């Protein structure tokens, strides 16, 4: 390696979730909070791929309605909302999803305490009015979710595309 390559510049570093997220979990367990850039479309319409960030902390209490980072299979993490807790059994559904995932309480590794959206410095706290009103409304619109998501982000559903 050339010494002249030492230059630091601001750039985007992509890391595999399976590598990055266990590290995030470790830092949370050490007592830090972690700000994590978000990828994926499964928390639409509130959160957008590549645009928004989540502020995570170690879960203190785990409740229905919380957006959490959960390990739904070994090294497979999702940041989705809890839709039900029955004993040790947790069911999750991304706000932008129709289907659900399942995990155990112990697999809930972090709670989102807020989100930084649209490049703003100001946190939209999950205790705040905006998130609570959005959550109340969006969860009640579940029967219409498929159509609302399509109206907001029109695309050709994969099942209609011709197979090659």
């Amino acid at each position, binding site marked *: 390696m050339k*010494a*002249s390559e030492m230059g630091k510049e601001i750039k985007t570093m992509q890391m595999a979730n399976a590598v990055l997220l266990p590290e995030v979990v470790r830092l949370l367990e050490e007592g830090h909070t*972690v700000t994590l850039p978000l990828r994926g479309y499964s928390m639409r319409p509130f959160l957008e791929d590549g645009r928004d960030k989540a502020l995570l902390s170690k879960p203190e209490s785990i409740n229905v309605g919380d957006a959490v980072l959960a390990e739904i299979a070994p090294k497979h993490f999702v940041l989705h909302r809890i839709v039900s807790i029955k004993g040790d059994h947790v069911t999750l559904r991304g706000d932008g999803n129709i289907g659900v995932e399942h995990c155990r309480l112990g697999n809930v590794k972090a709670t989102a305490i807020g989100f930084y959206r649209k490049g703003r410095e100001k946190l939209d706290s999950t205790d705040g009015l905006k998130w609570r009103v959005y959550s109340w409304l969006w969860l009640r619109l579940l029967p219409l979710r498929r159509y609302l998501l399509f109206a907001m982000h029109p695309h050709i559903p994969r099942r209609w595309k011709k197979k090659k």
Partner: protein
Amino acid sequence: MKTKKGFHLRNVCGEYVIVAEGIENIDFSKIINMNESAAFLWKKIDGSGDFTTDDLGAYLCEEYDVDEATAKADAAQLVQQWIDAEIIEE
């Protein structure tokens, strides 16, 4: 110059990053990432008290196949970047 207290070099996912221990929040959207040679220098100077740009140049010459003038210029550039990143102080 010396390194500021509380900044520690860690290996996160195979990348060298500077993590501020005193800071409660670790922001993965703004991390200070170091390559192998920068990390080598950081390890050399961290906790060792005062250092100069020339010291860094000398360490580079010891470890890498580089002439003195280039090493000094690179060290000066790195020091400026570390000052800008606020991880070292006069």
